[in-house]
């Protein structure tokens, strides 16, 4: 395996993102104290960078320009490069930014041209946050046990293709502040009956409430209840795709794509811990070991992104990157607390905040145990394909 060196274009993107990270760090304590009050932060330069780097040009996106390079909604590797640098400022601030986020990734996979245009223009015009609703209370992300339903409306509603959405989703990022998003639900009992729908928070029957999080409070988890929310046919995603590619296939691809992003957030947070120790105790034992482990995880995150750009279904490195990065960030956090001592928890409020934040990465897009199973299955399958040859 060779080291993945960033080319000039990606180095320019990395540099531009790194320049905006200190502002995120400065704003982070206020966001932690009042995670649902985003008004003071909407002018952050990093939010502008995220908007430019996640909105496709064909739907009105205005690319980020760095020297002779332009960046729009792009490759996984590009996203991971800027996301890791911004998380080095503060991961909670990264997740507080308005934009297409996970919902955009699903719309890219399952939306037809008209649905993509509706979604991206709505996000851009409203400066909106979006939600991606899979998880259910007491069911987690067990798709086989999903209870939310898309039922055909009664004939007297006048539209034979109209569905009504019923159910509850919980632990949903931007759940209470999202203006629109995607929701997974069943149209029947079979494994291919799970569909994703574009849902507007202003629709009748939509109700959401904020959930108070231990850390990473910028992600603003919420609970959403759907009581007969009308979903017209043109809002059902994947209507142009075969049945096997209408539902969870898209979600799996989104999770494959997002896992290294969570790893990038973890690595950025780990590097932030290193910054605090380097500043407060430059000769702390273990500094080079912790920093070296995080840099190795950064490299793995980049390699996972490059692998996804070649094959969107190749999630092996995504899972490995998430396992390693989440553990490395936690180790960095505990090491920082031990190295800096109790006084630092008073003098550096971000140290205490980040020790809460680092727990979130474990729960996002599949726990470390779930990722271990993915890695093990990939290993066994690969050996099966190769006839056991290394």
């Amino acid at each position, binding site marked *: 395996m060779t080291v993945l060196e960033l080319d000039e274009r990606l180095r320019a993107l990395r540099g531009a993102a790194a320049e905006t990270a200190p502002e995120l760090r400065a704003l982070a304590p206020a966001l932690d104290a009042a995670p649902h009050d985003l008004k003071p932060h909407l002018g952050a330069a990093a939010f502008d960078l995220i908007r430019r780097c996640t909105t496709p040009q064909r739907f009105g996106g205005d690319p980020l320009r760095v020297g002779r390079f332009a960046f729009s909604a792009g490759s996984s590797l590009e996203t991971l490069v800027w996301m890791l640098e911004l998380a080095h400022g503060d991961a909670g601030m990264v997740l507080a930014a308005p934009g297409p986020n996970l919902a955009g990734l699903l719309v890219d996979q399952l939306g037809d041209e008209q649905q993509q245009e509706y979604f991206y223009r709505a996000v851009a015009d409203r400066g909106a946050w979006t939600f991606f609703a899979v998880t259910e209370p007491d069911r987690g992300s067990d798709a*086989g046990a999903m209870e939310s339903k898309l039922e055909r409306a009664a004939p007297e509603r006048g539209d034979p293709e109209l569905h009504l959405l019923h159910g509850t989703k919980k632990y949903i990022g931007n759940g209470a502040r999202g203006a629109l998003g995607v929701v997974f639900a069943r149209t029947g009992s079979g494994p291919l009956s799970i569909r994703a729908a574009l849902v507007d928070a202003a629709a009748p029957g939509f109700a959401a409430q904020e959930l108070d999080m231990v850390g990473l409070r910028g992600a603003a988890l919420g609970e959403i209840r759907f009581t007969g929310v009308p979903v017209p046919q043109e809002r059902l995603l994947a209507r142009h795709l075969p049945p096997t590619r209408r539902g969870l296939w898209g979600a799996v691809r989104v999770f494959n794509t997002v896992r290294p992003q969570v790893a990038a957030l973890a690595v950025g947070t780990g590097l932030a811990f290193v910054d605090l120790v380097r500043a407060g105790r430059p000769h702390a034992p273990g500094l080079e070991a912790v920093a070296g482990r995080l840099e190795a995880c950064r490299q793995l995150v980049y390699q996972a992104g490059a692998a996804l750009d070649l094959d969107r279904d190749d999630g092996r490195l995504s899972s490995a990157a998430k396992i390693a990065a989440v553990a490395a960030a936690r180790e960095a956090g505990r090491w920082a607390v031990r190295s800096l001592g*109790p006084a630092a928890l008073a003098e550096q409020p971000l140290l205490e905040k980040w020790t809460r934040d680092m*727990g979130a990465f474990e*729960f996002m897009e599949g726990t470390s145990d779930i990722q271990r199973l993915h890695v093990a299955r990939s290993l066994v399958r690969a050996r099966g394909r190769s006839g056991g040859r290394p």
Partner: protein
Amino acid sequence: MTGARAGLRHYLDLGREGGLAAGLAAVLDGLDPAAAAPGAVALLPAASAPPGAELLTHPFAALEGLALVRLAAGTTATGPGLTGPRAAALAAVRIGLLSRMLDAAVRRLEARRFGGLPLVDRQLVGAALADVATEIEVATAAAGRPDAPAEAVRDQHERLTEAGWTTTRLFGAEGYLTDHPVRCLHLSALAADLWLARPTVTEGVR
């Protein structure tokens, strides 16, 4: 059971049944926080916060009856921190909290299914439960050891912090909300970080 062990059992039961605030109050009984705490900020039972003291913002300490208190404006490290019997008593309180949360985790994992199977029957979940149960036994044995050096005491507390995190993971995303009781394990770690004496040796990577 020796007298010291019987005393530790009292703190363990207090942590398990009364919670962190009650346990911490017992551990700190008779101490002047401003003179004893090793940093300028201490985690205290809310009821014993000095009148007029500056309370720092924390999203859920108050939900456990605790307060993050700045002890002296404009100063940094002050007191020696907890050592000896009081550090062992804090460990016992933390073991009690951990034990209670582990029981709650088992109840949840027995009731919850994924892919048709109870979560508690999954091998990786079982391994986590076994690791925490083992750590509780080791920590209980270690807490009764008299005259343990500060470095060993800190290491044992660090292991309790890791066991607490392993337990917290067993509650999934619901354990990451401030209204969930497992928040006490995060505060248990914070209490150790803020109250234990720092060892004289330089500490680094575990």
